[in-house]
């Protein structure tokens, strides 16, 4: 069967977003834009999953590559973007303007996921990052600081990335990942080594890895909630996807060992995120630090630099997207009711039991309590570290899991304290649907992790094969 048609359909669907974004400036119909974007996202997810199920593998127009890994992450991004779209529809003050920028961002994310070239990765990251800044800006002056911080940091990251690509260029001017992996990066050239470090820095900034994460707490706290959910749940994962494409498909294939870089980054990131989160009062800020620490866990699998490690990382990327967007859906909704700090969460159980239960499950999952998706993810990550003879990394990882118990625990305890009957607060139907779907996914995949584990293994295998 010819998969090329499906591939072109995906590219066309992706291109619809920027086109629609421009059109949205003229047609101001909120509902229409929402339903159109939701439909297209659902279509992309469906086509992508179908291709994944068929194990399709092909390269189109030289720069697009469809193989199990990209198909899996495209499906993930599309479905998570759908969730963010719903949140934005409910909470965005100006949905039309938001969706204009959102359209460009979506195209960027999907571009990175499907790319087969360092240039498309570059363009994709840029396309994703810049509109995000404006999305934050359009929500009013109070968010300016966050926007500026994000702008400066992403400009820096992009510059570093450009330099890293430039260093690679002499080895293969086509800059195609599959080409680079098979051709020329042989030998211990210090230029390649430098380029590798710069790639690590660039992606680390986007993915909020310590010490390149200074922008995260301010931006996460300052940005409107649905954008925070997107930043934590999707943007960060896009950077990881780029990281995996470059490091696993390119450098690892050419025999470069990047284990020490990522082991170090993983340890620093986990400890920084968890220790700082301990003292936070604002829940959104706490979750920002918690998401930094979760980034560190994903890096554990990358540090293992084996196929198993990659499987674990991919699994945890999916898991963390689900958990964090679920958690932020609740947190954003509460922020809208002027409930922001840990103490203000007290008695949430009596105000809205479902929200409290959902947040509890998401947090337990992030701690790594079975039988939830986060547990399976951490189990795989630490297993991969042990199997790659990085027992110390696994040990530090679990120490961090214990540290995180304290701050997640504080939020959970606060929700169940104060049982005086209070006025109930309601959640909008669409948001509640998002929360419940993600909640069910968190529990169901935790109990039956087989399919997702298999999918992650397949995706990891397709990356490691090189071409």
């Amino acid at each position, binding site marked *: 069967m010819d998969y090329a048609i499906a591939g072109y359909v995906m590219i066309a669907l992706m291109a619809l977003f920027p086109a629609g974004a421009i059109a949205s400036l003229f047609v101001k119909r909120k509902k229409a834009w929402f339903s159109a974007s939701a439909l297209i996202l659902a279509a992309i997810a469906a086509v992508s999953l179908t291709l994944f199920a068929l194990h399709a593998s092909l390269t189109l127009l030289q720069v697009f590559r469809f193989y199990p890994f990209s198909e899996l992450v495209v499906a993930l991004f599309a479905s998570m973007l759908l969730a963010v779209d719903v949140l934005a529809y409910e909470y965005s003050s100006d949905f039309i303007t938001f969706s204009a920028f959102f359209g460009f961002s979506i195209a960027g994310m999907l571009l990175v996921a499907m790319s087969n070239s360092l240039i498309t990765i570059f363009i994709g990251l840029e396309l994703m990052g810049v509109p995000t800044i404006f999305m934050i800006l359009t929500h009013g002056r109070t968010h300016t600081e966050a926007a500026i911080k994000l702008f400066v940091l992403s400009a820096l990251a992009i510059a570093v990335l450009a330099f890293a690509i430039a260093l690679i260029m002499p080895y293969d001017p086509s800059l195609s990942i599959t080409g680079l992996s098979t051709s020329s990066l042989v030998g211990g050239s210090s230029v390649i080594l430098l380029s590798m470090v710069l790639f690590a820095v660039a992606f680390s900034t986007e993915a909020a890895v310590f010490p390149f994460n200074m922008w995260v707490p301010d931006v996460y706290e300052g940005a409107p909630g649905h954008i925070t959910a997107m930043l934590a749940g999707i943007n960060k994962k896009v950077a990881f996807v780029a990281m995996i494409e470059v490091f696993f498909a390119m450098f690892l294939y050419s025999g470069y060992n990047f284990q020490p870089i990522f082991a170090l980054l993983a340890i620093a990131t986990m400890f920084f995120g968890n220790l700082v989160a301990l003292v936070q009062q604002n829940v959104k800020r706490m979750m920002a630090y918690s998401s930094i620490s979760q980034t560190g866990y994903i890096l554990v699998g990358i540090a293992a630099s084996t196929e198993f490690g990659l499987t674990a990382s991919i699994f945890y990327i999916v898991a963390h997207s689900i958990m964090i967007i679920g958690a932020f859906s609740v947190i954003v909704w509460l922020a809208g009711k002027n409930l922001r700090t840990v103490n203000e969460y007290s008695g949430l159980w009596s105000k809205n039991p479902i929200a409290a239960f959902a947040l509890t499950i998401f947090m337990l999952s992030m701690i790594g309590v079975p*039988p939830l998706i986060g*547990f399976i993810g951490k189990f795989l990550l630490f297993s991969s570290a*042990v199997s790659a003879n990085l027992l110390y990394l696994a040990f530090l990882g679990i*120490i961090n899991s214990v540290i995180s118990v304290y701050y997640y*625990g504080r939020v959970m305890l606060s929700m169940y304290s104060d049982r005086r009957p209070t006025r109930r607060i309601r959640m909008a139907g669409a948001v509640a649907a998002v929360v419940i779907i993600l909640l069910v996914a968190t529990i169901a995949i935790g109990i039956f992790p087989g399919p997702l584990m298999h999918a992650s293994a397949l995706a990891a295998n397709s990356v490691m094969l090189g071409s």
Partner: protein
Amino acid sequence: MQGILLLMTLFPLAFLAAAMLSGSRRGPAIAALSNAVSIAILAYAALSSGGTLSISESFSYITTIPISFSLRLNPASFMLLIMSYIVLLAASVAGNHEKESQKLAASLIILLQVAATGLFLSGNLFLYFIFWDIGVITSFFFLYSMGSPLRRPAAMKFLIYEMFASVLLLLGIITLYFGTPVHSFNIAYITANAALIGTTSQLLVFAFLITAFLINMGIFPLHFWLPDAYTEASTQGSMVLSAVLSKFGAFGVFILFAMLPIGAEAAKYTAALGAISAFYAAFLMFNHKDIKRMISYSSILEMGIILIGLSTLNVIGTYGAVYAMLAHGLTIALMFLAAGSLTHVFGTRDIRTLAGAVSRAKSTAYSFVFAAFSATGLPLTTGFIADLLIFIGAYAAFGFSGIVPLLSIVMLGAYMYFIIEKSILSTRKESEVITHASASQAFGYALLIGSILLFGILPFTLLGFVKI
């Protein structure tokens, strides 16, 4: 019958749904029924095993990493299961004097029932870990949502200690998995091939796992969460925490010693630690006037004795320890039930103000006295059989020094009988008011006392399955 163990593990989920959907007042009945059904299924499974009490089942679960859903019933898990069900049944019927949060309590009891069933039946370490954590989180919510006003800090302390234990357990399991020649989580496989695992990784695994288990059991010096948690929990909470949850770790030690050959070298150290823990608890107990705190220390003492039994590594001592787990579960549950009832009636936990309890709440006071008999190993109670077997085993393993810890039980007895004489049974402060135990409480007392006597007088009903 293939699938009976799976049924036993999963059917309570239906009761859980029922408990969550039905009204608050039906909660205790649903939880009790769920445990009664479990006892029935367990009895059926025992009868259908043809006198061996060993059944194993395996279902495919995850294929990417070979993890099967394997369950196995053996005499040790049988004893612990029957104890857990009896205690949970008694707790759900009689434990909630205050009638607070009945629905939540019932749901948590059923969840704990699932956790205990899965853990004691688990045939591979992955499942063991999953059910361990379900048990820990359930107990945490139990502790957090019901109990004294000081329960919340205690709950947080409990959670942090137990999560530390659980991640060490996870790390140990993962290390063990990659240490086995053909990577596997299956306990039977690991036991058969443990000699092939390198000494260093055995030592690492042993260190990780034993630390996790000792935290859960509350062995000195890892016990600091325990007195607070047991004391501040509600009556039901104290019962299930002390009787069921603490056995997770003890059962783990049982598996661990059977699994890794390096245990033989470590056994004398764990035995010493058990003895230290027992004496430590015995000495500290004298300081406390709080009846629940005193019982908590008696629990640390008993767990120390159990650890000694498990460390003997001979069949008598080991099964003595398993029997002691059963005895300890039933006894401590009865003690906490009676103590909780006294606290409820008198409004205080202070031993000095409980003076004359017998004149005011007769059946409760005598139940407490009976529990003290069993805790100190009086003949005809389960405690006697347990202590007898453990110290025979300890003598065989460690010689004369093995029976020195018996002194700690003497100290326990001395203190227990002292406070019973001075406070609970003293008649110098006769009370005018007489509180009768309600029917549900009487049922709880009768069930626990009956079980203690049954397994004390007829130990061969359970021990007959073990070839000693």
